[in-house]
C-alpha cells in the first residue's frame, strides 16, 4: 500500500502520558504507538476518557502544568519533539502542525474580525506583507467553499453560522500549509447535514494538499468515511490498529467487536437482531484492572491468561499492519455470531393514543421588552403539524436543530400551549392546557426522558428523593413508606442496585443517570413518553444498553414513545413510524420502511446520505446540501426546504418559491410535503444500498500481499526485532521478569532507567536517610505497584529505585516513612500516602 522507505510524518513510540494530581499519578495514555504517513489520514476512535484527546495534546506538547509525558517518543518528521527547544516547538505549532477543535466558536476570537484572524497566520509564521496575507486568506476562504468570502473576511465570528465557523477554523489551520493536521471531533457540535459538508471538505482538502491528518472521533461511521487507517483506544491504551478495512471487516479485539455490536448498523432490528451492549462501564483511570484493561467487560476473558500481565500489541497473523492488544487473538472465533436476546412477542400497535391535528406554535419576539414598542416578529416553530401515535408504538421525530421538534415536545408536555390546532390524548384535548392546569393523571401520562444525563437530575438532591417527589406529585402511594417501596421497585425496573437511592447524582455515571431519568419518566405509568435524544450524549458502549432498557420497559408497559432524534441509524433501529421535520414543517412521514426506501422527500434523501455508517459493505449515494438551515425568524417563502433543495430545478417555474407544497399521500399513510412530480418521485433510487459483506475482503488484502511477498519477507525479521524492542520498556515497567529475555541493549536501557531515580534519591535523600522506607533486593516476582491507584509507571520506577517492590513493604510504612516518600516524590501540594498504605495492605492480603 505504501512505500516503506518514505519517512512517516508523525511517529509515536510507546507514548506514556500521566497527569499528576493530589492523589498521585494518573496515567492517561499508556504505551501508545502509531505512525502517520505523508498524505495519510489516521483515525483515532474511542469513548470519552479513553485518552484520545490527550494523545493530540501530547503531540502539541500542550498538557497544562499537571500533564507530563513520562515515557516514549513523539517524532515529527523523524525528529524527536522531546529534544526540541520551546522556540522550535512554538514554531512548529500552528505552522507545521495545526489543530482543529470541537467547538468552532471557542477557537475563534469573538472580538476580532475573521479576516484579521486569518491574516495573522501568514503574518506571524511567514512574515509576508499585509496585502499578500489578505490575498492568501481570501483564496483560502474560496477553497473552503464559503459563499462571498470578501464579506466574511469583514465579519465577526458570531455573525456567521456554526458550520461556516468550522470552515473558517479549517481555513485558518490550512493557511500555514501544515504537514500534519489534528482534528479533535471537528464535527460533533454540528448538525448532520452540515457535518456531511465539513467531512466532504476535509477529505477533499486532504486529497488536494496531501496533508497528513489525525482524525479523532467517537463516531465509527465518520472514521470509515474519512480515514485510511484507524487506531481504536480503550482506557488509555490503543487496543487495535490497522487499515480501516482490516479493522472494520476483520476486527481482532473484543472491544472493537463490542463497539460494532452496540451501534445500530443497517440490518440491525429491534426484534430479530437487537443490539448487544458491552456490560459494565469504563474503569476509572485509577481503578484499571490488572492485565487486560478490557478484561472485566470481555466475554472471552480467561483467568490467568488475560490478567496475568499487561498485554502487548500483538500482530494479527497475515496482516502486517494490523495489530491488536489481545492475548487470545488466535483462540477466539471472531466470526462467531454473538448470542442475541431475541424478542419473541413484539408488541403490536393498538389504538390511537396521541392525535395531533394542524398544530401550530408561534412565538412573538418583541423588539423592545420594557416599553413593548418596536416591531414584533413571529417565530413559526411549528406549522400545521399533524400525526398520530398508537399504543406501544415508537414514533421517531427526526430533524436537525431548529426544526421545531423540541417545541413540539414542549406543547405535548404542557410547558407551552398551542397557538392553534389540537393535541388529543385518548380523545381529550390537552394542547391548550398548561402543565399546572392539567390533572395529576394527565401530567403523569405524558412524561419525558431528557437528552443530557448530566443535567437531567438535580445535583443537590439524592436520586431516591427525586423519584419519590415525582411519585408524590403524581399522587402515587399513600404514605412515605409506600412511595419508598415504589421507588425501589422503579430502581429494579431500570436495573440499578437499590443502594443507589441514597446516592447523589454526581456519584453516578452518565448511563446510570439516564436510567434514573427513565425510571422517573415511567414512574406514573405514562401513556406517552417523549424521549429527546436519550442516548446521544452517552458513550457508544453504554448507548445500546440504555436503548434496550427503554424499549423493554416500553414494550412491557405498552407505552407510546415519541423518539426525538437527528440520528437516522438509531431511528431506523428503534422506530415503527418516522416523522421528518424541517423548519417547523413535517416534510415526510410514514412507516420506517416507507421512509428508508424511495420515494423520498429531498430533505430525507439528503439526511439519509449524510449519516455516516460504520459498515464497509454499505454503498451510499452522495448528497451534500449547500448552506445552513435558515433561521426560523426569517423562513424562506414557499417550501421551507427550497433554499437548499438539490431537486428544486426539477420543479417547473417558481412554484417552490411561492407556494407551500401540499401534503400528498403516496401510499398507506406515507405522506410527503413536496412539489416534485410523481414521475420524479418514482424514479428515485435508494440512498443506502446494503451490499454483500465482502467475503473477499481477506483475499483482496491478501492478493497484493502475495505479489509483494518477496519484498516483504526481507523486511519481516527486521520489523519483528523492533517490535520486541518496543515491547521492552513496557514490560520492564510492568514485570521485571521479562526483562531478562529482552535484547541486551534494551536491558541496559531499562537498567539505566531504574538507576537514574536511584541516583537522584541518594543526593536528595541524604539528610533524612533514617526515615527512608526499608529496602529489599529485587525479588524474582515483584508486585505490580501500579495496581495502587496513584502509582503510574513513573512513580513505580522511582519506588523500584528505592528498593520497594512488594505491597507488603508499602503496607508497613509508618508516618515518618510516608512523609519521607512524599518529600522524595516532591509533589506540589499536600498528599497523603496513607491511602497507598491502605491499598497496599488490601492488595497484600488479597493475594
Amino acid at each position, binding site marked *: 500500500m505504501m512505500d516503506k522507505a518514505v519517512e512517516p510524518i508523525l511517529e509515536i513510540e510507546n507514548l506514556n502520558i500521566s497527569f499528576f494530581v493530589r492523589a498521585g499519578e494518573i496515567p492517561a495514555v499508556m504505551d501508545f504507538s502509531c505512525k502517520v504517513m505523508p498524505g495519510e489520514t489516521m483515525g483515532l476512535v474511542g469513548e470519552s476518557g479513553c485518552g484520545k484527546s490527550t494523545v493530540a495534546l501530547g503531540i502539541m506538547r500542550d498538557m497544562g502544568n499537571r500533564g507530563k509525558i513520562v515515557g516514549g517518543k513523539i517524532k515529527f518528521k523523524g525528529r524527536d519533539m522531546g529534544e526540541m527547544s520551546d522556540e522550535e516547538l512554538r514554531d512548529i505549532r500552528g505552522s507545521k502542525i495545526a489543530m482543529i477543535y470541537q467547538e468552532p466558536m471557542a477557537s475563534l476570537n469573538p472580538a476580532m474580525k475573521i479576516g484579521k484572524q486569518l491574516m495573522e497566520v501568514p503574518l506571524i509564521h511567514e512574515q509576508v506583507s499585509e496585502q499578500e496575507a489578505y490575498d492568501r486568506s481570501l483564496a483560502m476562504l474560496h477553497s473552503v467553499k464559503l459563499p462571498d468570502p470578501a464579506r466574511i473576511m469583514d465579519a465577526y465570528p458570531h455573525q456567521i453560522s456554526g458550520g461556516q465557523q468550522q470552515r473558517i477554523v479549517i481555513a485558518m489551520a490550512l493557511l500555514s500549509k501544515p504537514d500534519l493536521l489534528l482534528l479533535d471531533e471537528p464535527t460533533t457540535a454540528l448538525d448532520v447535514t452540515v457535518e456531511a459538508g465539513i467531512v466532504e471538505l476535509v477529505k477533499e482538502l486532504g486529497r488536494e494538499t496531501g496533508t497528513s491528518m489525525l482524525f479523532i472521533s467517537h463516531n465509527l461511521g465518520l472514521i470509515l468515511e474519512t480515514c485510511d487507517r484507524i487506531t481504536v483506544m480503550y482506557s488509555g491504551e490503543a487496543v487495535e490498529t490497522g487499515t480501516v478495512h482490516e479493522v472494520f471487516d476483520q476486527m481482532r479485539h473484543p472491544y472493537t467487536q463490542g463497539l460494532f455490536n452496540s451501534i445500530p448498523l443497517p440490518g440491525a432490528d429491534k426484534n430479530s437482531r437487537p443490539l448487544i451492549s458491552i456490560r459494565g462501564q469504563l474503569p476509572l483511570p485509577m481503578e484499571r484492572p490488572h492485565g487486560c484493561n478490557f478484561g472485566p467487560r470481555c466475554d472471552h476473558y480467561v483467568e490467568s491468561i488475560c490478567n496475568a500481565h499487561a498485554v502487548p500489541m500483538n500482530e494479527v497473523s497475515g496482516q502486517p499492519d494490523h495489530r491488536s492488544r489481545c492475548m487470545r487473538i488466535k483462540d477466539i472465533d471472531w466470526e462467531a455470531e454473538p448470542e442475541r436476546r431475541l424478542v419473541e412477542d413484539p408488541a403490536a400497535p393498538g389504538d390511537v393514543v396521541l392525535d395531533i391535528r394542524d398544530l401550530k406554535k408561534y412565538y412573538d419576539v418583541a423588539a423592545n*421588552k420594557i416599553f413593548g414598542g418596536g416591531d414584533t416578529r413571529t417565530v413559526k416553530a411549528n406549522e400545521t403539524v399533524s400525526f398520530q401515535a398508537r399504543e406501544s408504538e415508537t414514533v421517531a421525530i427526526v430533524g436537525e436543530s431548529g426544526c421545531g421538534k423540541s417545541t413540539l415536545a414542549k406543547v405535548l408536555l404542557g*410547558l407551552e400551549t398551542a397557538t392553534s390546532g389540537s393535541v388529543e390524548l385518548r380523545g381529550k384535548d390537552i394542547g391548550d392546557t398548561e402543565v399546572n392546569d392539567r390533572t395529576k393523571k394527565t*401530567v403523569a401520562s*405524558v412524561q419525558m426522558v431528557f437528552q*443530557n444525563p448530566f443535567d437531567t437530575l438535580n445535583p443537590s438532591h439524592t436520586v431516591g428523593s427525586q423519584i419519590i417527589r415525582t411519585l*408524590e*406529585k403524581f*399522587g402515587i402511594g399513600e404514605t412515605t413508606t409506600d412511595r419508598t417501596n415504589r421507588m425501589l421497585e422503579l430502581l429494579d425496573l431500570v436495573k440499578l442496585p437499590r443502594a443507589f437511592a441514597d446516592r447523589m447524582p*454526581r456519584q453516578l455515571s452518565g448511563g446510570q443517570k439516564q436510567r434514573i431519568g427513565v425510571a422517573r419518566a415511567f414512574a406514573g405509568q405514562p401513556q406517552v413518553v417523549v424521549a429527546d435524544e436519550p442516548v446521544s450524549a452517552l458513550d457508544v458502549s453504554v448507548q445500546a444498553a440504555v436503548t434496550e432498557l427503554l424499549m423493554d420497559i416500553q414494550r412491557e408497559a405498552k407505552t407510546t414513545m415519541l423518539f426525538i432524534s437527528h440520528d437516522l441509524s438509531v431511528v431506523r433501529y428503534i422506530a415503527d413510524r418516522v416523522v421528518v421535520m424541517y423548519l417547523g414543517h413535517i416534510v415526510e412521514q410514514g412507516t420506517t420502511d416507507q421512509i428508508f426506501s424511495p420515494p423520498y422527500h429531498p430533505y430525507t434523501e439528503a439526511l439519509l446520505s449524510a449519516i455516516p455508517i460504520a459498515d464497509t459493505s454499505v454503498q451510499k449515494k452522495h448528497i451534500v446540501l449547500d448552506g445552513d438551515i435558515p433561521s426560523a425568524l426569517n423562513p424562506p417563502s414557499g417550501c421551507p426546504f427550497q433554499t437548499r433543495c438539490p431537486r428544486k430545478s426539477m420543479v417547473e417555474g417558481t412554484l417552490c418559491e411561492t407556494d407551500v407544497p401540499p401534503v400528498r399521500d403516496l401510499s398507506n399513510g406515507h405522506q410527503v410535503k413536496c412539489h416534485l412530480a410523481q414521475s420524479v418521485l418514482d424514479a428515485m433510487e435508494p440512498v443506502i444500498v446494503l451490499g454483500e459483506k465482502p467475503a473477499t475482503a481477506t483475499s483482496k488484502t491478501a492478493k497484493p500481499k502475495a505479489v509483494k511477498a518477496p519484498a516483504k519477507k526481507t523486511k519481516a525479521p527486521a520489523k519483528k526485532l523492533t517490535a520486541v524492542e518496543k515491547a521492552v520498556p513496557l514490560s520492564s515497567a510492568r514485570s521485571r521478569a521479562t526483562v531478562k529475555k529482552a535484547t541486551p541493549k534494551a536491558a541496559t536501557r531499562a537498567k539505566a532507567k531504574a538507576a537514574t531515580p536511584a541516583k537522584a534519591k541518594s543526593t536528595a535523600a541524604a539528610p533524612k536517610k533514617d526515615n527512608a522506607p526499608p529496602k529489599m533486593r529485587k525479588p524474582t516476582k515483584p508486585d505490580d505497584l501500579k495496581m495502587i491507584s496513584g502509582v503510574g509507571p513513573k512513580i513505580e520506577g522511582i519506588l523500584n529505585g528505592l528498593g520497594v517492590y512488594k505491597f507488603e513493604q508499602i503496607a508497613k510504612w509508618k508516618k515518618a516513612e510516608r512523609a519521607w516518600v512524599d518529600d522524595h516524590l516532591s509533589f506540589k501540594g499536600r498528599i497523603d500516602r496513607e491511602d497507598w498504605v491502605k491499598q497496599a495492605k488490601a492488595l497484600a492480603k488479597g493475594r
Partner: protein
Amino acid sequence: MERLGGFEIFAQIMGQFLPVWIGLIVILAASFYFRRNLGLYGKLFDSPIGMVGLVLVLFWVLTAIFADQIATFDALDQLSGMKNKKPGWPVRDQEGLHYLLGGDNLARDVFSRMVYGSREVLIIAPAATLFAFMVGITLGLPAGFRGGRTDTILTFVANLVLAFPVILLFFLLVTPEIRADGEVYQLWGGQQWVASVPNIMALVLFLFPIIFFVVLWVSRYSTQPGKLAIFMAITLLIGGWAYIGLVFNADPFGVLYMDPNLLNIFVSVVFVNSPTVFRIVRGVTVDIKTRDYVAAAQTRGERPWYIMLWEILPNARGPLIVDFCLRIGYTTILLGTLGFFGLGVSPESPNWGQTINEGRKLLSLYPHLALPPALALMSLVLGLNLLADGLREESLKD
C-alpha cells in the same frame, strides 16, 4: 507597681484568649477528623488560604462568645488615673491587674473594649447580611425565573437603590427628624409605634424572612398536610414573635428587643445590601432555569415556587455562600464606617468603628487607642475574604 513590658503584655493577652485557643483546637481537630463527611466545609481543609481565613473568622467568633471570660474589665468601667495610659499600665489599688492595651480618653480598658466590640460586630453584621439575603433571594428568584415584566420592574427598583449614594442614604435614615416624623399608633399595653420611614422599612423588610420560610414549606409539603402544619406552626410562632419584638418593640415576654438606634442601622444595612444580593440571585437563576432538571420538574407539574426554592436555590448555593462571607466583611466595614461618622449605635458602645473614630482624634499622641480595634476589624475582614476565596476555590473543584 511596675508597668508591663512588651513581652509580658503579649503573654498576658495570649493567656486571656485561652478559651478561644481551646475552642479553636477542639473545633479544628473535630472538623479535620470528620472532614470527609462535611461537604464543602470539609474541603476547606485542603486549601491553605481558606484555612487561614477560617482560623481568623473562628478566632473572632469565639472571642465574641467568650467575651465575658476574656475581657479583663467591663467595657464601660472607668477607673481613676487610667486616662490615656500606655499599654500594660497597672491599675491603681488593684494588685496584679493591668490595662493590657492601655486606657482610652475616658479611662476605660482598650483591650476589654476591643473584645466586647467583637460581639457588637459579629451579631449585627451576620444578622443584617442574613436578612439582606432573605430579601434578595425572595425577590431575585421570581425575577430571574419568570423574567418579563416582573424582572424588568424588580431590576429597575434594585438599580434605583444601588444608584443612590450609600452614605447619604444613611444620613437620611438616621436623621432625628426622619426618625420621629410620622403618625403615632397606639399598640397594646400602652406601647406606641411611630410610622417613620425607618420603622416602615423595618415593617416591610422583616416580613421577608417569614414570607421566605412560609413559601419554602408550602411549596415543598403541600402534598403532606401533616408535616406542613408542623413546619408552618413553628415558622409562624417564632417568626411572628420575633417580628412583634423587633419591629414594634412590643414583645409580650419582653425578651426580644432592639434598640431604636440599632434598628435604624440594621434596617439601613439590609436595605442597601439586598439589591446586590438580588442581582446575584437573579443572574444565577437565569442560568440554572435552562437546565433539564428544571424542565423535568415542570413536566411533573411542580409549581413555580417549588422549582425556584427547591430545584434552583440549592444549586445556586456556591456563589451565594461565597458572597455571604464577602458581604459580612463589607457590612463589618460599613458598620465601622457608620460608627466613624458617628452614625453607629449608642455613643458609648465598644463597636470597633466608633472606637477607631474616637481614637483618631488622639492618634498622634496616643496611637494605642485606635490601633487595636483597627487591627481587629482588619483581621476579621481579611479572614472573611480569605474564607470566601477558599470556599470559592474549593467549590470549583470536584
